[in-house]
């Protein structure tokens, strides 16, 4: 190389500037800048916090069940009595009965034990459902199942979409054509129907092929079914980004220098799309939680008696008059979880995208 035109380098310029202004200018990576922007977004941070609180609470469901409520999520307590504030109350009382004297049935509605909050020493904190089960325990276990499925399927979905997009974007040509058609077909498929169908079919015997053994009640079934629903949703945009990155000179240079496909994909392409992927991942978790709720509501997701927020809403529908909390509470849980993810995802996108003109700051 020729001699440098001046002996003023970036470092020396910084040194000079700092001497002049008594301020140290330090070069920052885009990640640090993003983190700083995110840090100032209190709403997004609060949402992330809320999400973590929900996740931890649901993860601790077995602890709650065992030590606080003293019952499992599927244990029926109808016919039992609970001591609330010292008074004995029926878990499920009332109901119609046959009056031997008149020879007729007396028609009365059943009464359900409402939320005891803390008056029954941790039992039936949120009341009972129509089968005499502890609602609080079921909501927590339900959250556990819904979150496991939501996060698990999001992981699988993102991983598969990312892989396919990388392959399509790197190899282009025939490979790209094939993967794009694959995305098209999944996109055209009424996936909710397929999810219901597969769930119903596998409900009887589970899945025992190709060396994989999945029992009928396993959470893997809804997880796998949901994970493939949104693959094209993120696969296509990422593929688009990779295709345009592919044209850039630094990729050509890397390939020209003899870098193999894996090297290019991991060291050059991947880091440039990580921010997009991260944002998508957050939003996909939210979307999958809603999809799982919908499937479970229709009876094709988590199978009864195991709880999930979706099937709790379905089970509570018939009691909407006398025990509205049965359907309202799981719904609110879903809204809070998904909302927190959406707000955080928004904040994340704003933070990672330096071109955003207006961000929710302050």
């Amino acid at each position, binding site marked *: 190389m020729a001699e440098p035109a001046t002996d003023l380098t970036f470092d020396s310029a910084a040194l000079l500037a700092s001497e002049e202004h008594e301020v140290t200018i330090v070069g920052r990576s885009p990640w640090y800048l993003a983190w700083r922007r995110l840090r100032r977004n209190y709403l997004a941070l609060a949402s992330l916090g809320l999400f973590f609180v929900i996740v931890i609470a649901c993860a601790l469901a077995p602890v709650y069940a065992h030590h606080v409520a003293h019952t499992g999520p*599927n244990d*029926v307590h109808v016919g039992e009595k609970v001591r609330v504030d010292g008074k004995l109350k029926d878990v499920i009382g009332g*109901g119609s009965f046959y009056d031997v004297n008149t020879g007729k*049935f007396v*028609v*009365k509605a059943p009464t359900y034990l409402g939320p005891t909050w803390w008056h029954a020493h941790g039992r039936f904190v949120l009341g009972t459902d129509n089968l005499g089960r502890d609602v609080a325990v079921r909501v927590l276990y339900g959250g556990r199942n819904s979150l496991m499925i939501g996060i698990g399927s999001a992981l699988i979905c993102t991983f598969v979409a990312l892989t396919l997009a990388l392959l399509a974007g790197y190899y282009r040509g025939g490979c790209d054509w094939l993967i794009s058609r694959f995305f098209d077909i999944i996109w055209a498929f009424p996936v909710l129907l397929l999810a219901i169908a597969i769930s119903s079919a596998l409900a*009887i015997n589970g899945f025992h092929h190709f060396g994989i053994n999945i029992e009928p009640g396993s959470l893997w079934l809804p997880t796998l079914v949901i994970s493939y629903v949104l693959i094209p949703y993120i696969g296509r945009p990422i593929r688009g980004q990779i295709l345009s990155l592919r044209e850039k000179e630094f990729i050509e240079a890397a390939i020209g220098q003899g870098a193999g496909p894996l090297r290019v994909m991991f060291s050059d392409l991947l880091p440039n799309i990580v921010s997009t992927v991260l944002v998508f991942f957050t939003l996909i978790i939210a979307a999958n939680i809603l999809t799982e709720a919908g499937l479970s509501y229709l009876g094709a997701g988590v199978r009864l008696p195991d709880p999930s927020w979706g099937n709790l809403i379905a089970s509570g529908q018939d*009691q*909407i*008059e006398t025990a509205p909390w049965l359907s309202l509470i799981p719904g609110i849980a879903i809204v809070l979880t998904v909302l927190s993810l959406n707000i955080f995802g928004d904040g994340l996108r704003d933070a990672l995208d330096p071109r955003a003109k207006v961000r929710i700051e302050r």
Partner: protein
Amino acid sequence: MMVAAYGVAANKSSSAPNKAYKKVGTLRAVLDTIDFLDPQQAYTGQSWWAMWNVYETLLTYKHVDGPAGYQLVPGLAQSMPKISSNGRVYKFTLRPGLKYSNGKKVQASDFKWAIKRGFLATGQGVGFYTDIAGAKAFAAHPTKGGNISGIVVNNKKRTITVKLTKPRGDFLTILALLFAAPVPSSTSTQILNGKIPGTGPYRFSSFDANRGFTMVRNKYFKPTKYIPRGNPDKVDVSFVSDANSATQRVINGQADYSNGAIPPDRIANAKGKGHLVLRDAANTYYFWMNTREAPFNKLKVRQAVNYAIDRSALNRIVWGGLGRATQNVLPPTYPSYTKLKLYSHNVSKAKQLINQAGAKGAKVTVWTRQVSDAIDAAQYYTSVLNNIGLDAKLNILPRATYYSTIGNVATHAQTGWARWLEDYPHPLDWFDVLLNGNRITNTDNNNYAWYSSAKTNKEIEGLKKAQVLTPAVNKRWATVEKQIMQQAPWAPWSNRVFPEFFSKKMGCIHIQRLYGVDLMRLCRK
């Protein structure tokens, strides 16, 4: 003996059909579902509710309340049949001048065509008629031109003679099933919902499988001693499967009557805003236990289950209390009914029996179908099994495939939910179909417990010959029932009481024992 306990606003003249009909106009009804409106196909209570006013059979039931509604009377036949001394030959004569709703004459050969059509169209009820001579051979290779030798008809003399291969005490009731309703000989073997003409007071004028159907008056119908003219001019039926919605429609005034279940917690609310009538129907809800599959092949395990279930609590959960706890096979409507009290609610005894049988920790799959009451009952049942020491989990199957799956020996189903609504009022409809070891089949089996005991099998076969249900015969049935329940292939838990919900403006509510709410006799206040 007959338990007549339901709150019905019946007037004193409940035994005679109305002489002068009261104007109703269009009756708007809501049903949860039906299967078909084709007489040789339909096999649900809801379908039959409508169809018995459209299709008549040789013998029929009276439009009266209470147990008298079980009495068979002549329908299309002039009189009760002549039965041979060996109980195998039945001779009928048709009434003269019978016409279908399209004006065509009813002929004796139409009855034969109806039975043949059942086999040709693979109808659901053909199993009842296989004891007619020649029927089994016909069923093997059914053709339009083929013959069932056991049915001999003479159109000129209007006679129908039916020969059986062996005597059956319930054959008259089988002939009163809608499967045996005559249809014009030109009727094709395709399923024709709502298009087949009948001889009853009404005919179907439209049918939409997912949405509903309508019935209008049959202008060729002439009232008889037993079948009156109906009050409604038109019956407009909509299908609404959501119980809540159906109830709300009546409350809102969009419908006059709903036959669907009322969610238990809406009952008190509904009572104030409409007219709730409770109907006793002959039904039993039970959990079957497969006597061929472990752990239910052990008597102690089956007994343990019977001790563990809190029947009154279960009735409270599933029906809101509108059901009677039971340990019997037969419902209380049968003269042979003697209330069994073999198993008290005793959870610790149940646990003990499980331990004694060495079945602790045994893996069990509980089967049920995707209907909300079945799911609730099965969830309770699963929790109970887990509580007494088994390792149970629940498997919910779609409604349409449930019975054929648990009735298939290859499924090896251990235990699950079931219920039986009587097809016709005879103990054979229960014991022969559900608990006779000789009638176990490998597919589409109805004996879900796969229960077979040489003693009770023999007794059931012997009782088939009894033509009349005398007190002596009833005593034998009661003994059979007790012997079976001591072996506990089932854990029966409820005789359900059906809520029928009417708008406040409806009156003259009469319940026919077999067919339910008598739509013909409804009136407006």
